[in-house]
């Protein structure tokens, strides 16, 4: 995954409304009208958020000219999760393995 794409993914996720929209879309596609309902926001405001999400590749919009339903795209989310988990957990996971290895080396040393 390119750093640019990660940047746009995380910038898109930095906003609580956009995260709520993604959470809503996780249960199925929805039109702008449907998405605007639970939020105290105008449809143009929701449309703006959808554009940010679309640019980040997190959603796609349907071709239906009237509804243009938004749907979640799983791949960038999965990549971002993998990358974050990778960086944050890299050392913790590594060190857990190192603990085991050191126990083994100590045992070996005690035997010799």
């Amino acid at each position, binding site marked *: 995954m390119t750093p640019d794409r990660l940047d746009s993914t995380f910038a898109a996720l930095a906003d609580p409304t956009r995260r709520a929209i993604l959470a809503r879309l*996780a249960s199925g596609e929805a039109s702008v009208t449907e998405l605007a309902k639970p939020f105290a926001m105008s449809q143009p405001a929701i449309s703006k958020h959808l554009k940010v999400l679309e640019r980040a590749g997190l959603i796609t919009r349907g071709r239906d000219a009237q509804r243009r339903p938004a749907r979640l795209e799983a791949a960038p989310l999965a990549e971002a*999760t993998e990358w*974050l988990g990778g*960086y944050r957990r890299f050392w913790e996971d590594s060190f857990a393995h190192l603990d085991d290895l050191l126990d083994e080396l*100590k045992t070996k040393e005690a035997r010799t």
Partner: protein
Amino acid sequence: MNTGTLQVTTPSEREIAMTRTFDAPRSLVFDAWTKPELLKRWLGVRNGWSLAVCEVDLRVGGAYRFVWRGPDGAEMAMGGVYREIVAPERLVSTEKFDDPWYAGEALDTIVLVEEDGKTTATTTVLYESQEIRDAVLESGMARGVAESYDVLAELLASMA
């Protein structure tokens, strides 16, 4: 046995430091950090990833190269040069990723301190600028990102 949690601090404006205590003498910890057959057992070994290539020329000016292989043919590679080697207490090396996710080269310093048979390892990474350091911090460790990560995890769980 897990004897400590990982602590992350910022000792200067261009550095990130990680501290962790291990229940072993530092000679063993130093070996684990410098011998390829031992490094392959732990460094970056996670979630289906393995340290497939591990070349270590342990002398000042000698190079090292690590290549990790993950699921679906994914690969991550980095390398550098050893600058200072004081076994079993100090190791200084440069680091640079093949497919860099931060700009420039960084300098890694590993310091091992032994007390009552336990070893505290402090790894300090010095970046070329504060901007790069901050970008690294924000990318992986800042709270906002941790929250995003939780959200992502929930989303992915709900999509599964």
